[in-house]
C-alpha cells in the first residue's frame, strides 16, 4: 500500500492551498510479546499500515470501516495519543510528529477529540465546571466568570448545569459536555470518534446538528470516525473507507455512495439497511463470507481477497494477481480525487439496487 501513497493517497479535488491536516504514510504497529520473564516480540499487529489523507479547513472527512479496521487507532496516532510507528502528521503547517513533549502539550490546544462513550470519558467525581476549567488550567489560560457559562451556552446547555456531576445528565447532554470540552480552547481540528453511536435516534439528530452548527460558526475542521454510514452521508464532505489498517477507497461523499468502485465499499454500503421497506424489497445485499482476518497475520496481496465477492468471479491468473500483488490506490476519477485500491475496480450501484 505504501508505494501508492506517494503519488496517490493525498489526492483531492477540494479547495486549493495548504490542507489543515496532512497525514502522510502513517503507520502504527503494536508488538505481540510472549514469554514469562524475558518478553520477546513474536509478531506485529499492523493496526494502521500506511494511511495518507488530507483534510482542508472547514471540511469534514469521515473514516469509516468495521471494528478492528484501525480507524480509531489512526485517529489516536494522528493526535499522538498513541505514538505512531512511523509517518508524518502536519497540522496547519506544524509537523506534529516532530514535536517534543512540551511542544506537543502546547499544540494540543489546536487538536482535540470527542470520544464515543460520554459515560466513560467524563470524570464522575468532578463537576462540569471543574471538568471544563481543568482544560484551561492545563493549558495555562485564564478562566473568567463567564467562560464556562458561555461555553455551555454554545453547546446548548443552561448555565445552572455547571455545578452538577456527570451522572445527573442524559447521554445526549453528556455528549454536549464532551463537545464543550473539545471546543474550549478554540481548536483548529477535532477528531470525532463515533460521537453519536451511543445515542438514541431522536437524540442523535440533535448532536449531529450541533456539530454542524459549531463547524459553521467556528470554522472547525473535523475527522469523523464512524461505522454508521447514514450519518456519514449526512455529515461528511469526503469519505475514506478502511479495511485491515489501510484505506481501500477514498472519494467525495456523493461519489463514494453513488459510484463506489471497491468491492469492499460496495459490500459495506449494500449491507446497510435503509428505512424504506419498498426500496429494501428490491435491493440486493452483498453478503460477505466469514470474518475480518487477524491483523497480526493479514492475507498476502490484497487484504480483502479472502472475503471478496469479486475474487470468486475472476479467472485463475487474475486471482493470482490479487494474491501476489498488493493493489495500490488507483485513480478512478483523478479530477475529483476518487481512488480505490483494487486491481479490478469497477462501478456497481448498491444504494438503490
Amino acid at each position, binding site marked *: 500500500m505504501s508505494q501508492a501513497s506517494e503519488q496517490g493517497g493525498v489526492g483531492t479535488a477540494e479547495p486549493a492551498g495548504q490542507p489543515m491536516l496532512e497525514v502522510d504514510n502513517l503507520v502504527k504497529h503494536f508488538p505481540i510479546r510472549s514469554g514469562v520473564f524475558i518478553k520477546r516480540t513474536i509478531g506485529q499487529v499492523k493496526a494502521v499500515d500506511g494511511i495518507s489523507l488530507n483534510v482542508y479547513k472547514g471540511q469534514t472527512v469521515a473514516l469509516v470501516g468495521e471494528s478492528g479496521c484501525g480507524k480509531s487507532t489512526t485517529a489516536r496516532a494522528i493526535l499522538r495519543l498513541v505514538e505512531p510507528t512511523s509517518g508524518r502528521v502536519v497540522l496547519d503547517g506544524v509537523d506534529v510528529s516532530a514535536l517534543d513533549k512540551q511542544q506537543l502539550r502546547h499544540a494540543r490546544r489546536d487538536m482535540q477529540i470527542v470520544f464515543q462513550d460520554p459515560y466513560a470519558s467524563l470524570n464522575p467525581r468532578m463537576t462540569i465546571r471543574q471538568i471544563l476549567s481543568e482544560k484551561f488550567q492545563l493549558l495555562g489560560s485564564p478562566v473568567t466568570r463567564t467562560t464556562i457559562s458561555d461555553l455551555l451556552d454554545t453547546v446548548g446547555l443552561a448555565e445552572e448545569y455547571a455545578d452538577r456531576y456527570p451522572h445527573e445528565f442524559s447521554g445526549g447532554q453528556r455528549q454536549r459536555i464532551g463537545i464543550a470540552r473539545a471546543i474550549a480552547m478554540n481548536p483548529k481540528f477535532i477528531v470525532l470518534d463515533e460521537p453519536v453511536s451511543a445515542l438514541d435516534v431522536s437524540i442523535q439528530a440533535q448532536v449531529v446538528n450541533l456539530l*454542524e452548527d459549531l463547524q459553521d460558526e467556528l470554522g472547525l475542521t473535523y475527522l469523523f470516525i464512524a461505522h454508521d454510514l447514514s450519518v456519514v*452521508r449526512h455529515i461528511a464532505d469526503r469519505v475514506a473507507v478502511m479495511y485491515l489498517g489501510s484505506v481501500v477507497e477514498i472519494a467525495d461523499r456523493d461519489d463514494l455512495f453513488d459510484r463506489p468502485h471497491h468491492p469492499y465499499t460496495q*459490500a459495506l454500503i449494500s449491507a446497510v439497511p*435503509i428505512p*424504506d*421497506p419498498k426500496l429494501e424489497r428490491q435491493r440486493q445485499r452483498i453478503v460477505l463470507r466469514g470474518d475480518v482476518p487477524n491483523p497480526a497475520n493479514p492475507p498476502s496481496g490484497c487484504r480483502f481477497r479472502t472475503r471478496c465477492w469479486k475474487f470468486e468471479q475472476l479467472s485463475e491468473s487474475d486471482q493470482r494477481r490479487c494474491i501476489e500483488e498488493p493493489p495500490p490506490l488507483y485513480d478512478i476519477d483523478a479530477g475529483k480525487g476518487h481512488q480505490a485500491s483494487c486491481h479490478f475496480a469497477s462501478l456497481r450501484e448498491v444504494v438503490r439496487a
Partner: protein
Amino acid sequence: MTGAADIDLEGPPSALLEVRDLRVHFKTDYGVVKAVDGVSWSVNEGETLAIVGESGSGKSVSAMTILGLVPSPPATFPSGDVFLRGRSLLKMPEKQQRKLRGSQIAMIFQDPLTALNPVFKVGDQIAEMVRVHQDVSKHVAKKRALDLLGEVGIPNPAVRLNQYPHEFSGGMRQRAMIAMALANDPHVLLADEPTTALDVTVQAQIMALLEKLQDDRNTAIVLITHDLGVVASYADRINVMYAGRIVESGTADEIFYSPRHAYTYGLLSSLPRMDQQRQQRLQPIKGIPPSLARVPQGCPFHPRCTFATEACLPEVPSLVSVDGETHRAACVHSDRVAMAFEDRVGAK
C-alpha cells in the same frame, strides 16, 4: 403477512403467541417504574413482528416477561397475560412454564458474549439445551449440536464444537446463540437487538440466516430493535413503543409511508438517509425521553411533540384504528400528523 393486528381482548386467543394488556411495574425508591403499561400484540407462524423503540421504552422488558426472566419482586404484574396457542403462560404452574421456555419459545440476546457461559465448551452448552427438553443420550445431543452449528453456517463445526466462547468472533458467537435457540425447534423466536453489537456486513449475514431459518421452519420472529433500517428490511408488522406503551402499530408500509403518530413521524424525520443526497438539516425530536417513574400526564409524548395541544393532556390516548384494518395509532392529532408527513414527502 397475516393481519392479526387487531386484538380482540375479550374473545379466545387465536394467534400463535398473544400478549394481552401486559403491565410490568417495578417498585423503586423513586416511585413505581411502569416499564410496560398495557401492551397487547400477537404474532403468527412465519411472521416477523418488530417492536421498535428507544432505550427505556419497555421493548425488552415485555419480551423478558414472556420468558419469565423478570424477577418478581421487584417486578409486579398488575394485569395482563401471555398466550401460546391459546394457553395462558403466566397462569400455568412454574414447572410447565419451564417446559415451554426454551423449547417452544426461545430467545436470542444482544450480547452473545455475556449470554454464553465462558467456562463451558460451546458444543456442550448447545447439547445441554437439547437434553433439558428432550430425553436423549449425551451422544445424541452432541450430534444434534454438531448439526445445528453446521446449519447456522459455522465453518468446521466439528472443531468449533469443542471450543470455548472466547475463541469465537462476535458474529460466530451470535450464530452459536442462534443454534442454541433453535435446539428444540421453537415456534417463536424472540430476538432482542440480535445484531446491534455486530458490524453491518456481519449483521447482513445474521439477518439472512434468520430469514432462511424462518422460511425453512415457519418460525414466528419477534424482532426487538431500535434500528429503523433493520425494521424496514425485515419486519412484516411493526409496533412502535414509547414510555412503556405501544403508540402506533401497522404493517411496515403503513408505518414508513403513512405514519399517524407524532412520535413515529418525529423518528422518521430525524433519521439521516444513506440513499439521499444531503438534506439541509436533520429534524430532531426536542428534549429527552421521560423517566418511566415520572411519565407525563396525558399523552406521554406531548412535552416533546410539535403537534401537541390542550387536547393531549386530559388522558392517555388509546390505540385506535386510523385507516385500514391493521393500522392503529394512539394520537389525538393523527390527521394532522398524516398531513404534515405528506407535505414533507411532497416537498422532497
